[in-house]
């Protein structure tokens, strides 16, 4: 339930460091405590002064750090400890270029255990996250907060999501159809019809149709899910509402489109039966 940010692969270490310092400048309640550079056999504490040149000095100290180094920023968010990690490329592929985690303070007064808790309690405003990601769109590939560790794989487990490519909105719908079809025979028939299509092509067609796109956003609103244009942003308070939203998109958009499309198996049998021995 942490924030995973994937930056574009061609970004330099300087780009990454600038992104991180910009994050701390934008979200002032994340107060840096210590900064460490971590290499396989070495840990270095990076010093920074807390006066006017705080971020400038910090960034200058980190610009020429090796890409193979991980940089850890320990921070305090209100009454909770947290950690922002700027990963090396290997860890970045698995966990995101940047991970932001908030941890329990293990006291009786603890109210926040995860990054997602902080969004739910409006301590971090999702609109501010949206604006921050929009500003950094040229560097950003995607960002999400997952409900469980496997959230990246299953759109039903991602309650906050920002993607720089709009067509991902409908690619996620197709992924949800695939997941739900595993347990629902009715949906399985629809999935069999849809799966033969190129996902990117179909999603792109759906995204580019303004009426369909707006209709999908209206369906989101009916299910208490925030879906917004620009790039693509999605936010839900709970997984049930998110699932209901995806189910309504399947029913209202995908089913009517594929209603008359014959099953490929039926077509093959039809052709096959006409072939003379």
């Amino acid at each position, binding site marked *: 339930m*942490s924030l995973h940010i994937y930056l574009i692969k061609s970004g330099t270490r300087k780009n990454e460091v600038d992104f991180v310092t910009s994050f701390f400048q934008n979200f002032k309640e994340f107060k840096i*405590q210590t900064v460490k550079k971590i290499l*396989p056999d070495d840990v270095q504490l990076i010093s920074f002064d807390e006066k006017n040149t705080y971020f400038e000095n910090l960034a200058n100290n980190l610009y020429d750090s090796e890409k*193979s180094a991980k940089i850890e920023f*320990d921070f*305090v968010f209100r*009454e*909770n*400890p*947290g*950690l922002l990690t700027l990963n090396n490329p*290997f*860890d970045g592929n*698995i*966990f995101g270029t940047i991970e932001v*985690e908030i*941890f*329990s*303070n*293990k*006291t*009786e007064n*603890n*109210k926040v*255990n995860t990054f997602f808790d902080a969004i739910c309690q409006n301590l971090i405003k999702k609109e501010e996250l949206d604006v921050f990601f929009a500003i950094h769109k040229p560097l950003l590939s995607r960002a999400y907060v997952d409900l*469980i*560790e*496997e959230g*990246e*794989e299953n759109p039903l487990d991602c309650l906050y999501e920002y993607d720089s490519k709009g067509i991902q909105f409908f690619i996620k719908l197709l992924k949800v159809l695939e997941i739900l079809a595993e347990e629902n025979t009715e949906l399985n028939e629809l999935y069999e019809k849809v799966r033969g299509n190129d996902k990117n092509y179909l999603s792109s067609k759906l995204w580019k149709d303004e009426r369909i796109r707006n209709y999908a956003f209206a369906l989101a609103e009916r299910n208490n899910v925030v879906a917004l244009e620009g790039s693509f942003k999605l936010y839900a308070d709970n997984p049930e509402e998110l699932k209901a939203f995806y189910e309504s998109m399947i029913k209202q958009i995908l089913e009517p489109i594929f209603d008359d499309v014959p099953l490929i198996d039926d077509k093959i049998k039809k052709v096959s039966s006409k072939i003379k021995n």
Partner: protein
Amino acid sequence: MVERPEDAHRRAPDDIPPIGNIKSVCHAYEWEKKFGYPLGKIRAADYYVEYSHTAFGSHWLIEASRSHLHSQLKQLCASAEFFASKKIQVDNYLVVLDELSRRDKQKYRTSEITLKPLKQIQEKLDNENTREYKIRNKAVFLIYRRDFERLKK
């Protein structure tokens, strides 16, 4: 999860493996009073446990609260640094886990037999690039909750 003392005590039997006779358990919420641990500022593991005897040493720092290994290690590392700075004896580090997530499997290698040192993969996804994951030059052990019963036998 609110760390009320009664919740912490109720959860402890599910979190602390029976790898020896437990002599004392110091819950994270007690660390501030006992060791001056700044709980709101430094990430914290869950228990500082003294066993009367184990094959590896008596004082263990245990992390069992998060659902995935990658995040658990971050809490364990921060606590390890604090305990070392205060010269408090820690012989071993232990993560208690229910299962390894898909992402954790990409990064860490664990033996099917638990209570073995944890390994991490470096740079390439192959076994040749694994090395023991260490905190303060000591191995980190991992145990699955489902194996607690087996340890009692």
